[in-house]
């Protein structure tokens, strides 16, 4: 695998992770500060299966997703009944706990040494395929009763419940779906870097994703994807001068917050762009006509 391939795969991995964060935070309004721990789980499930057993590649991915979903289910049962601010705290604690457990539980997980020599079974096509499937799934999710119920729950839980929406259940659905997808991104990461250790899955990573979803536009998956792309390109091109990179990233964030406070895409997706463009043009021409009349 060439260096360039690795870079592009890493961008795709980040996109999958950010899309899962979008489902959780953008659509449902659940702040998961420990979402990176699901990536960690996915990476370890795939890594362990690939190095210690001869389960085929595709199945290790599926097991990673199932592992992430199971963890989300177990953690979600108590968490999803809590208030939002507590959810952020507890997922943060859970995330750090996972890292600590993997660090100390060394005879299976390799401890802080991590897992080495994971076969690099993934390539660009597989990565692109997975990304496409994830995008398809989440776009469908957003445009279904589930997505609309997620937004309703985010906007007003009491009102949503009074309309017959099972609030806890819809939150669980989003949490499990996001957990599975984040774990999938972790599995992709394991196969791309061929080496994983627990310490790269801390809260900082989750917070990065939260930031990306925010500036991309809280209800827009397209926005999350674009911002991920921009930030990844930045961090690659300015790899040697990390101070400059931070400066430029901060500048982008400030500009977006100042000029498009709802995020780069607001609540729109790519498919809305032509429509929005036409709307704006017709408004402009209407304004021009008004001015002529005056």
């Amino acid at each position, binding site marked *: 695998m060439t260096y360039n391939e690795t870079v592009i795969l890493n961008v795709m991995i980040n996109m999958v992770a950010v899309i899962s964060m979008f489902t959780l935070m953008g659509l449902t309004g659940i702040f998961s500060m420990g979402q990176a721990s699901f990536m960690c789980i996915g990476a370890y499930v795939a890594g362990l299966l690939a190095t210690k057993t001869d389960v085929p590649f595709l199945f290790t991915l599926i097991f990673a997703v199932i592992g992430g979903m199971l963890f989300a289910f177990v953690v979600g049962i108590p968490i999803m009944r809590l208030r939002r601010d507590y959810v952020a705290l507890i997922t943060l604690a859970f995330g750090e706990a996972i890292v600590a457990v993997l660090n100390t539980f060394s005879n299976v997980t390799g401890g802080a040494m991590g897992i080495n020599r994971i076969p690099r079974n993934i390539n660009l096509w597989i990565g692109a395929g997975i990304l496409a499937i994830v995008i*398809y*799934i*989440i776009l*469908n*999710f957003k445009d*279904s*009763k*589930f997505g*609309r*119920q997620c*937004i*309703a729950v*985010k*906007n*007003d839980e*009491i*009102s*949503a*419940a*009074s*309309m*017959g*929406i*099972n*609030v806890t259940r819809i939150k669980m*659905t989003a949490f499990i*779906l996001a957990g599975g997808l984040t774990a999938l991104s972790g599995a992709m990461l394991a196969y791309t870097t061929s080496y994983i250790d627990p310490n790269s899955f801390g809260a900082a990573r989750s917070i990065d994703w939260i930031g990306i979803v925010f500036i991309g536009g809280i*209800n827009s998956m397209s926005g999350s994807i674009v911002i991920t792309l921009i930030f990844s390109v930045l961090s690659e091109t300015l790899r040697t001068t990390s101070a400059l990179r931070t400066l430029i990233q901060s500048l982008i964030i400030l500009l977006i917050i100042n000029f498009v406070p709802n995020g780069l895409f607001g*609540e729109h997706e790519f498919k809305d762009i032509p429509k929005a463009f036409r709307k704006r043009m017709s408004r402009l021409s209407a304004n021009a006509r008004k001015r002529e009349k005056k």
Partner: protein
Amino acid sequence: MNEPILTSNNVSMTFGGVKAVQNVSLSIERDSITSIIGPNGAGKTTFFNVISGVYKPTGGNVEFDGTDITNLRQHVISHLGMARTFQNIRLFAQLDNVRNVQSALDARADYNIFQAVLGLPKKHRVDKANYVIAMECLDLVGLKDFANDRPSSLPYGMQRKLELARALAADPKLLLLDEPAAGLNPKEVEEFIELIRRIKDIKRLTILLIEHRIKVVTTLSSKVYVLNFGQLLAQGTSEEVQSNPAVIEAYMGEDEEEETVCSK
């Protein structure tokens, strides 16, 4: 013969030391319009919140359509056929108006997560059908032209109608309206009374409303309950209640100075 659709037996709700609702027993007949009135802070909205499941009552029980709903959760009660609106309009700000209405139908839509994420035909079929129903509900309250706007772009009176449409989309047997005419001007109130009448005739449902406007209460409701300081003060037809000295005292207070209060 005609057993009541909703009965509350000695319902009480306390918050710490505050007794918001105390031993309220009432029954709502099917196919009727009933009003609950009372001065500010009388516990009307708290009572609504108890019967719709937002709060669990600290005493007593509530029976709806033959089911004891005292300890059921909000969405379960909704699925039994009770819908409500809120005093301080609670719409979903990030969904457009038709999707707001559709949310009630989404909660009842019959497809699962796999059909949803894979975009299978059943999902599209159900969603399309629900969209049509949602548009019909919007049409009923006269908001069809605003289907693709956001709730925040609507004036106050229309937001109230939108909330009403959303509640109707749940196809309820009992509709709870919490101060539906608050903030409306006299002309809008007239329209609103007409609208409620029409909806009741079309949908054949029972309506329980909290209201301050005497006009709405007297023209619409066949029975009136008066709450004061969390307790049931009086009940009867609107004429009976209006001439009840205890009610007059509760509304006007004993001081002459406060007479202006009742003028609204």
